[in-house]
């Protein structure tokens, strides 16, 4: 036993070689979707500059947490690929390096929604490369023409839904406020209002205003009527959809790959408009008032749903020792039409880089066009750290409504009160 100790300690000490200085290299953390493209660009960068680019693949779900742990110790990457809604948390923690707001003169080539998504506290913290939003996907074998209004959607759903046969006309993930938001936003619900300077005012929460309650009530009635199964998560949703047992779903471009593999004859259309007068006939709901300052003026009584816009992009660590190299790599090697198209081919979502978006290859893709039509109405998902408490209380409210345990108004008002308390906002 003693011998074991001695040998062990000796080995420990002898191997205690002090680290040798290393060649400069750029380290990039990316998930496996983006990694191959970035690796190729990295090879090009190395050929031109002699600087090696090391791409470390990390599961997308773990990227943010691991970055937060590793970055302050100097073990993090120089560049990180992630979603715009991480910006607030990472920047508030002092982990991100701001970009030159002109993006080296290329800012005009980027979708403004993408740039807004990565802005926080007056700084730009990311270079966007792709945007995404949800729309209505329909199975053409079951739904030949997509509904234009929510009223038509209800009629189609009534005709198709047969729980005994496991078939539904319309399904959506729930509780999942991300997919629920279009229903609430249509008639005027919103998450955070804005301060005069354009930044988000997290104490102005529009999730329990009349417009939001209206949308939530329609959702409630659909469940009550049996048109919408409660407790559908991603896995059950895809199970129904890919087996051809769902007529319509609200989802994003990420569902398309699976849809094609399953051989579903599908189409993409904008999410149907909420139309209070027709729906009022259906569910006897009073019409909500027209929102005072709507972001997109609706033509009453039609309320177009506004989904969230999500943005994916590249961020630079505040603890990088090679920031100039990192920015050079991003602005001159990634922000090019070729690279942006390569990223698009790997994962088809609308490029945030306009020269790539306007390329015939992208424009010719009918799905991109359809999702793009919906994107006109999309609102960037708030990127401030306060969103954490919103998601939690909000999905609880949706759960209560879906389980028929609370009236929509009660559930939403309780959620807003909970959010305000958590955020330290003045309560009425």
């Amino acid at each position, binding site marked *: 036993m003693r011998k074991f100790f001695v040998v062990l300690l000796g080995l420990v000490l002898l191997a205690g070689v002090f680290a040798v200085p290393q060649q400069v290299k750029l380290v990039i953390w990316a998930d496996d979707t983006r990694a191959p493209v970035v690796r190729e660009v990295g090879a090009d960068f190395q050929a031109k500059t002699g600087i090696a680019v090391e791409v470390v693949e990390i599961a997308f779900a773990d990227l943010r947490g691991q970055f937060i742990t590793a970055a302050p110790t100097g073990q993090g990457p120089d560049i990180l690929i992630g979603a715009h809604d991480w910006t607030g948390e990472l920047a508030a*923690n002092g982990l991100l390096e701001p970009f030159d707001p002109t993006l080296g003169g290329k800012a005009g080539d980027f979708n403004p929604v993408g740039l807004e998504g990565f802005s926080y506290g007056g700084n730009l913290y990311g270079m966007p490369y792709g945007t995404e939003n949800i729309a209505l996907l329909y199975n053409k074998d079951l739904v030949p023409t997509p509904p234009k209004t929510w009223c038509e959607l209800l009629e189609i759903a009534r005709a198709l839904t047969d729980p005994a046969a496991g078939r539904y006309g319309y399904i959506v993930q729930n509780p999942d406020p991300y997919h629920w938001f279009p229903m609430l936003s249509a008639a005027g619900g919103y998450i955070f209002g804005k301060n005069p300077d354009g930044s988000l005012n997290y104490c102005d929460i529009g999730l329990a205003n009349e417009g939001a309650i209206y949308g939530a009530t329609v959702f409630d009635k659909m469940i009550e009527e049996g048109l919408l199964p409660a407790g559908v998560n991603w896995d059950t949703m895809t199970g129904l959809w890919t087996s051809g047992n769902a007529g319509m779903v609200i989802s994003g471009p990420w569902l398309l790959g699976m849809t094609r593999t399953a051989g579903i004859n599908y189409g993409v259309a904008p999410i149907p408009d909420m139309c209070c007068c027709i729906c009022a006939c259906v569910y006897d709901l009073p019409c909500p008032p027209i929102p005072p300052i709507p972001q997109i003026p609706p033509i009453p009584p039609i309320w177009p749903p506004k989904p969230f816009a999500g943005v994916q992009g590249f961020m630079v660590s505040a603890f990088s020792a090679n920031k100039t190299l990192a920015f050079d790599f991003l602005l001159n090697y990634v922000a090019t039409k070729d690279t942006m198209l390569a990223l698009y081919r790997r994962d088809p979502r609308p490029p945030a880089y306009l020269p790539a978006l306007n390329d015939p290859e992208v424009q010719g893709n009918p799905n991109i066009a359809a999702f793009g039509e919906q994107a006109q109405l999309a609102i960037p998902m708030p990127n401030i750290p306060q969103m954490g408490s919103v998601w939690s209380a909000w999905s609880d409210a949706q759960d209560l409504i879906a389980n028929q345990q609370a009236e929509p108004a009660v559930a939403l008002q309780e959620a807003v009160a909970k959010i305000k308390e958590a955020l330290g906002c003045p309560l009425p």
Partner: protein
Amino acid sequence: MIWTALLSTGLKIVLLGILDAISVWAAVSLGTSGSYSFLAGLVIGVIIINYLALSTKAYPFRYLFPGLVFLGAMVVYPIGYTVYISLTNLQTGNFLTKAQVIAQLDGRYYLPPDYESFRFWAYRNDQGALRVILIAGDGRAFISEGDRLKSVDLDEPQFERSPGGIVERFDGYRRISGPELYQNLSLLERLNLQYGDYTVRLANLNEFRSYRKQYQYFPGEDKLVDIQTGKVYYSKEGYFTAEDGTRIEPGFRVNIGLRNFISVLTSPTIRKDFTRVFTWTILWSLFTVLFSFAVGLGFAMLLNDPYIRARFLYRSLLIIPYTMPAFISALVWAGMFNTDLGVINRILGNLFGLKINWLNDPFWAKVTLIFINVWLTYPYMMIVSLGALQSIPVELFEAARVDGARGWQQFWKITMPLLLVSVAPLLIGSFAFTFNNFTIIWLVTAGRPAVLGAATPAGATDILISWTYRLAFEGAQGNQLGLASAVSIIIFIIIAAISAVNFRFTKALEEVSQGV
């Protein structure tokens, strides 16, 4: 005999001597490299080893020491770290240390409207020192000297210029370009060249620009001054804060004493939900352990029976739940229990016309969770029981049979007490593990269904640890790690108290085994 004893003592002393010699050498090198925490660890470690090896009184600890080293490093140290964090305000916005934040703010520059931009050439001498020559838009030339920037006339003779006018060499410095320039960029970007009120810095690959420094930190008064506006910020509660309350982001972590504990223990909203969550947590752990042990032991008894054929096959099939990643099986179960679409309701509907609201009803959601967790846990109990059953001497059963005890009587009088000698601590451990088993709750219900009127985000199936997670990570402005640590310490105190009570029974069990 004497010879071997002498030899072993001699060998011991020689080995210890070698160990101590190596340690002294290592201590010196650690000390000179300034890593005092490791130095302390090494010294303490070596002293303990010497003591253990030489003292006969410490003999039992020679057996314990190897395990304790690992336990200390990987279990006790993280506990200490959690205690430390619980005393800080570590959260989103107060994440870095103060030194890191000062370094970051002190290095913050802004581009004034009248900024100038410069082309640059970079130079290196044989000692590896770097210098740059900057050319302004109007042709004025500057050269770096230390951290200053000075005007220079490039027509002076020491500058060797190429036909294109580029300065190639001067004073032993040689121009670097191409890959060599790239290799030195990270050094160039650290240059802060003072020129009047401006700081000239590398802006990108092609140019330097004249920036202005934004903040100046004064360590003596622990204050930060905005050079542009003259506004003074004092370090207060983890932020540099001005008189009027404006704060500079990012903030930093500071020690806030017991404030996290106080805010948890005195929060009226937390107190309101505590009893409900705590009760369910206890029931969840208790039923999981009880049922999984019952099922596991049952199978172990059946499969320990030499008269059951094919028991090797059976055992292998029955441990399958243990061999699959819980991540996938928990989600598969959750899918099967889906009220509208799950296969379980489909079977129940076809057979009995039943439709149970498995995961959306508070009661059934709890039942489902325990059912799934028993499935995940019983193979562990089965393997453990299988091993423990081997410790029961057969003669006892034969004696019991002579006394007329049979079947159940044998089981309760002999099997169970003897089995518990080794298994009881594992049951206590399993209880504690289930108590803190965040993963399963999160995968199957995520704490849902929601409860109307809950003061905090506490769903019907949230256990203490998942509730903590929601409080700390979804309850406010981002992540509150300090608060989460405080709550985990409180949870630890609760579970430790429960376990310590249970622990008293193990003394009785030890005596059972003495009687064997």
